[in-house]
């Protein structure tokens, strides 16, 4: 495997342009619901955290799986045991982080008033966090396998797709949990 900058550019440019466009659309959508989120400022504060943790877990999974495909350590099929184990470890870590973060925020609620109850903030974080983690693990794995079978370098494809989708899923799952738990 050799690298040439023109190949790197060719393989990534179209995809990144598409992801950039989706990102700008997302930006304008977030811009329009900003005022609703401003009623509960704590929810705005959750957006970068959901996107950050979800996107990064996907990035770690994607990078690990890509390297393992290249070296042949993981068979590029959904039924590979080591692939499944990798997915489970990511889901476990994600759940743990959001559980701890939810607990921390509901305790913080006693000292800083977030204008919601501790149970509400805990449920919103756990729910939105779990939805984001589960979807992003699945998306990352599917995109890794797909790009590998298409003969593309997963290193160039998986992370851009996964992080862009994570931003959307993070915002949507947050909105969903707010609607279910607090109501809009």
């Amino acid at each position, binding site marked *: *495997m*050799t*690298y*040439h*900058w*023109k*190949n*790197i*550019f060719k393989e*990534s*440019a179209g995809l*990144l*342009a598409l*992801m*950039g*466009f989706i*990102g*700008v*659309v*997302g*930006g*304008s959508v*977030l*811009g*329009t619901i900003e005022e609703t989120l401003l009623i509960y400022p704590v929810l705005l*504060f959750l*957006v*970068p*955290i959901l*996107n*950050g*943790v979800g*996107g*990064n*877990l996907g*990035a*770690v999974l*994607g*990078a*690990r799986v*890509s*390297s393992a495909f*290249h*070296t042949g350590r993981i068979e590029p099929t959904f039924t590979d045991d*080591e692939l499944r*184990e990798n997915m489970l*470890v990511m889901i476990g*870590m*994600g759940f743990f*982080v959001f559980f*701890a*973060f939810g607990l921390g925020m509901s305790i913080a609620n006693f000292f800083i008033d977030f204008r919601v109850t501790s149970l509400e903030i805990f449920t919103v974080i756990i729910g939105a966090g779990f939805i984001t983690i589960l979807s992003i693990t699945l998306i990352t794995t599917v995109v890794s396998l797909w790009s590998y079978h298409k003969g593309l*370098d997963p*290193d*160039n494809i998986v*992370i*851009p797709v996964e*992080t*862009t989708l994570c*931003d959307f899923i993070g915002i949507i799952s947050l909105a969903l949990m707010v609607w279910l738990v607090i109501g809009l």
Partner: protein
Amino acid sequence: MDKIEVIKETLPLLFLLVLGGALAGSVLASMERVLDMIPGLIIIVPAVIDMRGNISTTLGSRLGSAFHLGLLHQGLTSDVGKENIKGSLALSIFTSALFPVFLWILSLFMPFEVTYTILGIIFLISISTGVTAAFILILLTFSIVAFSMKLNIDPDNISGPILTTAGDVFTLLIMFGYANLFGWVIL
């Protein structure tokens, strides 16, 4: 599988990420004034941050694979390193130039308007931020891989989280520096 290894190397970073996300959120909140001065800038902020993360984490991921394939043995200044730097820079310039175009296209369909002066300012901010942040993050990516090689850590487990978190904070700070500069000179 090296389950314990990935948990040990990744989990502490995830907790740092929660703090990093909070920091990025606070930086964004404190830049309210300049966002008000350049209407439309807020719309490209998430996409610009995301793109920085994408370009640097794909670089990190490629270098990680190269490391596992044993291609980095001659050091990071080898052809593998140089071609990856050139690829990253080319992608940064290309995508940065696209954001004002996307914004203009969206303004035709979405309920917001941008003037050509504002589009010009956003073009300058986007390109300058893209190139400046690219240089800083390429340097950071190579440092992370070199550091992992030295400490015998798998770069795949740490490069992503560090790059996106540092990328968010650096990109926001650089972007608002340029936004203030160009906004002040032109408006």
